[in-house]
């Protein structure tokens, strides 16, 4: 059966109504994967704390590598199993570390995932969250080299995919955290999480994803269902290990004698929230003339097609409609033919 490879992006840390919380775009990803037959999406779409799911039609690709795929720099190679190593931030307290190690053991014993080994960073990563992250979450880490050194250590031991667990400041009582938990704000730590995983992707070129280490927080009876997946248990590591367990290998292009499951030239569409057209993958897709399906999904940005006037952009009201567009593209159906009124075909004039 034919498919229509599609990239699905929900940018991290911009408060998307769908996908801005804890794996709450996963059902949408499954829908779009079913419609397209081949969906490429990033960890924060798929990771719901302890909850996640595998789907044979979904490629789990970290955001930096996803951008490189859209730019045509890499291809993807399907694998049956990754050998996962975990980097733990040395700032993590012993009890929280032990909880995470037990979760990793559980993923081996219960799910059959190949978690090979772990390493603790030589220095704490020292997370710095941007003070002005009420609209877009952002920040950095003070010791990026120690993160990369830890990743190199794992790769030297034969690890093929890396999970990172970083210690985040205890801000469970902060206004931003409480607003987020009640479904009204931006995930305050998502921007730094992206930086951490981007560093591993950029410098080590292996599949990777990040889970934060946070202290258990007080019960909130007004919890929004979309944030609920992060309230189960002590760690967010299970979804990361599930996603990485068979994440595709990164194949640098041009590739010699390397089998490829998905070449960037096969990608036909990118699905992205309306207002979030300023990311590198979308701009790279526009360069290639790909279909951009812009979905109404309330967020803090207003970078719309009003400023681009890109002709191959479809604005739709929801992801159900986006799935319909993908199906039409996959089957080669002229979208105009299923809309009314239907215009007559036009006579062309010869240009001078």
């Amino acid at each position, binding site marked *: 059966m034919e498919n229509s490879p599609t990239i699905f992006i929900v940018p991290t840390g911009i408060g998307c109504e769908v996908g801005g919380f804890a794996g709450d775009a996963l059902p949408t990803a499954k829908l779009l994967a079913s419609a397209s037959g081949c969906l490429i999406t990033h960890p924060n779409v798929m990771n719901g704390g302890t909850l996640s799911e595998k789907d044979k039609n979904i490629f789990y690709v970290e955001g930096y590598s996803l951008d490189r795929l859209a730019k045509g720099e890499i291809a993807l190679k399907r694998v049956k199993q990754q050998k996962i190593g975990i980097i733990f931030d040395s700032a993590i307290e012993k009890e929280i570390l032990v909880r995470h190690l037990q979760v990793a053991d559980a993923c081996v014993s219960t799910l059959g995932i190949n978690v090979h080994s772990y390493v603790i960073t030589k220095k704490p990563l020292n997370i710095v969250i941007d003070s002005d992250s009420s609209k877009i979450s*952002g920040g*950095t880490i003070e010791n*990026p080299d120690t993160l990369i050194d830890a990743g190199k250590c794992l790769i030297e031991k034969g690890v093929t995919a890396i999970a990172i667990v970083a210690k985040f400041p205890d801000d469970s009582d902060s206004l931003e955290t409480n607003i987020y938990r009640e479904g009204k704000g931006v995930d305050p730590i998502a921007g730094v999480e*992206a*930086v951490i995983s981007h560093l591993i992707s*950029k410098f080590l070129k292996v599949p990777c994803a990040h889970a934060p280490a946070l202290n258990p927080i007080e019960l909130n009876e007004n919890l929004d269902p979309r944030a609920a997946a992060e309230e189960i248990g002590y760690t967010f590591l299970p979804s990361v290990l599930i996603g990485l367990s068979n994440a595709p290998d990164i194949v640098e292009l041009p590739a010699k004698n390397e089998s490829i499951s998905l070449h960037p030239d096969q990608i036909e569409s990118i699905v992205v929230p309306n207002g979030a057209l*300023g990311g590198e993958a979308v*701009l790279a897709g*526009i360069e290639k003339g790909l279909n951009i399906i812009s979905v109404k999904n309330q967020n803090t940005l207003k*970078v719309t097609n009003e400023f681009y006037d890109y002709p191959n952009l479809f604005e739709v009201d929801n992801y159900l409609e986006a799935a319909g567009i993908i199906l039409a593209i996959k089957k080669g159906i002229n979208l105009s033919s299923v809309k009314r009124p239907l215009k007559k075909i036009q006579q062309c004039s010869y240009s001078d």
Partner: protein
Amino acid sequence: MKLSSVDYYLDWPVSIKLKNLREFIITNLEKKGDLIRWSIVDIQNSIDSFGTKKLKIKAVIAN
């Protein structure tokens, strides 16, 4: 390596076509350092007669 989070403001002249916008941004941003993460977070139409648009880009850069 040191990371910094920056807000970068850039004029997008009409002479730069949409399909060249990404390269235009990268060329300008890379003068600041090695790019880890970036995105256009705001665009404003210009009030001048040249049609220049104003971009706000949020980036994390390594030096």
